[in-house]
């Protein structure tokens, strides 16, 4: 696979937008069957061009128009916004106050940097196979709730291109939801609360809501391998002190001693569980809750409410390219979430290279087949 060089981006994008971007499927999605008049025409897109030039309120008359513009402008990044009351590209001609965002998909953005306080392997924009499990768990937990608790049917999960995942919920009724309800949904899905100044970020109530217990069951499947092996959260004093900060001081000394006696995180976790549920703790809550609270703090999804609540919020479009990594924002197959590997996601250079290779090897006739072949692989199975 050719390595991606950001300097080549303009050329690569030219090729990508001419030969590979799936305009037909893209338009079919955003047009929603043409049931509502002008739904596509009133949709806002924003482009980020070379040299960080950012233009909002782009809108298009149809698929052909979209294609032409994208090929002409060659955007580095494409964002999708709301469906407005008027064509966004004419918003300046509209009477003040009349131009309003009316509908949009419900979206979620899960970003790895929000977990920096609980992952040891990487920080900020970096990701690796050890921490990617956080995304895996997040997708399982959130998608289950969206599907089973809320009854949402049309959910698209997309790799963001660098360090996270996005979810687009496209049900007709969902696109009409108010900002308040969107916020309420995020609130329902939130358990980890507090910033840097808060040590203990999860507090469970006496009665555990089914959403919480179902989420815990999902986390339990991954916890041992993710937290105790890959992240090794009880590896040494530096790391286990962070966990001790979440349990009552009365058992700190005993635990410090016990931890020294054991050799790995798995054993120490067992110690911890025993100590928590012992009589030594004068807690108003059952010790069992504490164990769950720790697991949740280390593993439960962290959502950015600002992305989800605003109807006019712009989010990176599926199939757009990430300028820094070159990776394409590809959909994630919900049946194969556990197998998804962000490091095997096609980059723009690799797909363009493949296209070149195919076109040179075979005659022009088969070039088209090769294109659609590459397109298929890029899209995954939807």
């Amino acid at each position: 696979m050719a390595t991606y060089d950001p300097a080549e981006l303009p050329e690569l994008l030219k090729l990508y937008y001419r030969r590979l971007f799936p305009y037909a499927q893209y338009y079919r999605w955003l047009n929603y069957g043409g049931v509502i008049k002008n739904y596509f025409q009133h949709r806002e897109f924003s482009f980020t061009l070379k040299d960080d030039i950012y233009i909002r309120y782009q809108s298009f008359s149809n698929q052909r128009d979209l294609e032409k513009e994208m090929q002409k402008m060659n955007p580095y990044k494409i964002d999708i916004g709301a469906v407005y009351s008027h064509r966004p590209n004419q918003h300046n001609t509209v009477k003040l106050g009349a131009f309003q965002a009316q509908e949009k998909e419900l979206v979620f953005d899960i970003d790895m940097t929000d977990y920096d306080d609980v992952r040891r392997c990487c920080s900020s924009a970096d990701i690796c196979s050890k921490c990617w499990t956080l995304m895996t768990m997040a997708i399982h937990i959130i998608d289950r709730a969206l599907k089973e608790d809320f009854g949402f049917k049309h959910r698209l999960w997309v790799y963001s291109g660098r360090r996270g995942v996005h979810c687009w919920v496209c049900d007709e009724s969902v696109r009409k939801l108010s900002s308040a309800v969107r916020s309420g949904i995020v609130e329902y899905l939130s358990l980890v609360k507090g910033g840097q100044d808060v040590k203990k970020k999860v507090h469970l109530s006496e009665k555990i809501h089914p959403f919480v217990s179902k989420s815990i069951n999902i986390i339990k499947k991954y916890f041992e391998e993710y937290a105790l092996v890959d992240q090794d959260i009880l590896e040494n004093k530096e790391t286990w002190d962070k966990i001790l900060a979440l349990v009552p001081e009365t058992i700190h000394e005993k635990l410090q001693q016990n931890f020294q006696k054991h050799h790995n995180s798995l054993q120490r976790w067992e110690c911890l569980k025993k100590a928590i549920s012992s009589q030594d703790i004068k807690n108003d809550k059952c010790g069992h809750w504490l164990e769950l609270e720790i697991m949740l703090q280390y593993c439960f999804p962290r959502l950015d409410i600002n992305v989800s609540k605003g109807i006019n919020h712009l989010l990176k479009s599926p199939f757009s390219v990430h300028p820094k990594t070159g990776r394409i924002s590809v959909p994630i197959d919900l049946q194969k979430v556990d197998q998804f590997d962000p490091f095997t996601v096609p980059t723009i250079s690799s797909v363009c290279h493949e296209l070149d290779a195919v076109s040179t090897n075979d005659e022009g006739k088969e070039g088209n087949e090769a294109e659609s072949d590459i397109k298929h692989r890029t899209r995954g199975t939807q």
Partner: protein
Amino acid sequence: MQFSGGMRKKLRLGGDQRKASYPHSLQFYLEPPSENISLIEFESLAIDRVKLLKAVENLGVSYVKGIEPYQSKLENEIRRLKFSFRESLEDEYEPRRKDHISHFILRLAYCQSEDLRRWFIQQEMDLLRFRFSILPKDKIRNFLKDSHLQFEAIPFADALDLFRGRKVYLEGGFAYVPLRDIVAIVLNEFRAKLSKALALTARSLPAVQSDERLQPLLNHLSHSYTGQDYTIQKNAGKISLDQIDSLSTKSFPPCMRQLHKALRENHHLRHGGRMQYGLFLKGIGLTLEQALQFWKQEFIRGKMDPDKFDKGYSYNIRHSFGKEGKRTDYTPFSCLKIILTNPPGQGDYHGCPFRHSDPELLKQKLQSYKISPAGINQILDLVKGTHYQVACQKYFEMIHNVDDCGFSLNHPNQFFFESQRILNGSKDIRKESIQPETPQPKPSVQKTKDASSALAYLNSSLEMDMEGLEDYFSE
């Protein structure tokens, strides 16, 4: 609703019809009543409901809602006033009808200002909550069904406040609400509907107010004091002037204590203060002669010319005792009247300290009265919750060193009598209960059978309010 002049028309329905019109012991008051009733009944129903809602308010601040003894005390009040509250074997038609009609009458009276609306909605909600809490489970289902409220499964977007905090179970996009949480939804619905209805009522008020039979009645209701009026001076002449200073610290409510202190310090009080304090003194037993002497002495200390006093002020004092002009015997102001009307301005000392004083100043005042810090905090909390009279009760409890004052404060003279009762024993001063079970020399409103005299009574007391002694007492 139609109003007939004098004759009382009672709607006669057959048994089944009666049951059908009010199938449940509680209701949402969705449909206004459509019968004819007499003005007397109009008035008496309204006054009873005001009493009920006041009881709801008082019990609500004195006890924890939802458990004993709040539950049985409220039940007693409702029973006593003959309103509906529970399915029973007896014919519930009359109490339910009373409940229905009186609610709508009060909407007219209480829609007029933000404060009144808020108070009305709060008490009605508490009442509904109580009635709901004693509904047997099988009756709940029927009631909800008839009220066209759907509860088995609510689309999640309609139950935002319940699902966002994970208070309900969500499945397939629907929120499933346990029965006990249904109360919360019901009450919210009720509050929203009532609030809207009051706003609409306020808009159509001009039409109602143009009916001159109703206008004074409705005005009076929302400012009404429905208890003892303390015009009867059982103890006239039993107070001597030299006792007043000591009585002011021992047995006066803070509003009068502060007025007395200001009078002593400044040798003068402005109009509002003279009205409020003067009538209070009459109520505790000062005779006209004593009053004249009292005020004159003080004003002269303030370098007022004795002749000027005789010419200007003494006439007015005699007037307030009913010895001049119209010869109406003016009644001392109730707490409600003091709290709701004529707020004090710069240089005034009247009003209710709990209502009209800045919390900081109130705190200082209470400290100067040697109230304990804990007591002061409790009082300030009550003030913050706008429970001014309960705050005054707390003050009473603190200065008399009792746990429970044993009464529901509605009138400054009541404060005085209760205080004297504790300090002197109950020999001389009979406990004046707030509910006029004992016959009064002056017929109280609800016992009047004759429509015209009922209105006359109301009109006269209103005249007192509205005419004001402005003409006589202007500076």
